[in-house]
């Protein structure tokens, strides 16, 4: 039996990556849900990115590269959102009520309406 890699994404957008060995609890269940191909990992990320609800889930991967890539994609997405907020704050000229009045940054709720 092989080592699996778990990427846990919590509702507050914490992302962590860990090893799951065959003797550990939850291994059997993880094995049934393991993501083998990177294409599936990327599609899962895209679905999560466009989802209306916050993500709170664990994902299992057979390859460390796919697990790392998946975790990084989520973190980079968060970073992009943060960068958009920083842009707004930096460009805020004090004429409107708050820096996100003319927001280009879309919340998950906004995206779900589209």
């Amino acid at each position, binding site marked *: 039996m092989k080592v699996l890699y778990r990427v846990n994404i919590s509702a507050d957008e914490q992302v962590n990556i860990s090893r799951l060995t065959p003797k550990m609890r939850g291994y059997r269940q993880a094995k049934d849900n393991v993501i083998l191909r990177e294409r599936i990992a*990327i599609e899962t990320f895209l679905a999560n990115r466009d989802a209306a609800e916050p993500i709170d889930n664990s994902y299992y991967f057979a390859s460390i590269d796919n697990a790392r890539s998946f975790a990084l*994609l989520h973190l*980079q997405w968060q970073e992009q959102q943060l960068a958009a907020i920083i842009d707004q704050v930096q460009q805020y000229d004090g004429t409107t009520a708050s820096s996100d009045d003319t927001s280009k940054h879309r919340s998950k709720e906004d995206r779900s309406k589209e």
Partner: protein
Amino acid sequence: MTTKNRKRQSPSPLDDPEVSKKRRNRFYEAELSRLNIELIKLQEHVKREGRRIVVLFEGRDAAGKGGVIKRITEPLNPRVCRVVALGTPTERQKTQWYFQRYVAELPAAGEIVLFDRSWYNRAGVERVMGFCSDAEYWDFLRSVPDFERMLVRSGIVLIKYWFSVSNEVQESRFRDRAKDPTKRWKLSPMDLQSRDKWQAYSLAKDRMLSHTDIHGARWHIVNSDNKKRARLNCISHLLSLLPHDEPVPDEIDLTPRALEARGPKYERPPLSQQNYVPEIY
């Protein structure tokens, strides 16, 4: 990645088997001439507004990047639009920050720089052929979005194209290159080695595109199985992203040359005193 609009609304004459080759070529040349005028307007706009434009051309070997770059640069002033195609890094460059040699090539105001392959080498050929370590590769994927956001924030317009070619078409282009002595130079030993790594390149490409498709610097995918269509599609898409409403320079009325003021009359020296190129044609 913008693949949504990939399907055309009506069939292009360029791949319509009913249309003769001559008519297809005529259509292609006419469209290219029309786009050339638009490119000149874009050039005037870039010059006048002092804009800084970077266009990256990425894709597999023989995907047609070079052909598009050639058609873009042909009508433009090389002082405004230049091509950057960096070779293997020197020993010194290898010790520098990975992006350093690319940064040196970024445009000043009023310039367009076309990168024929770019910093994305690390996520493609270097990864697949094992020219970078695992740590360098992952650090690259992490750094690129930050690096490109920095460029965009500084006012650079960054446009990224991926030329998508199918396995069969790439193989047939490789065979053409191998046969044709004027194209053989395009086939490097590295191309031949990477021929057997189609799948590894595909995986690397998918990962690269998903990690680096960021706001302000999206990837645009060009279907390049048909070279001529790819050229027209790419140039017209590029033009659609950038304003190019400047008029082309006005027609110039060349009046008859004025007679020169009085002075010593010029006499051409005997031809035998100069070293002429032999006229063998």
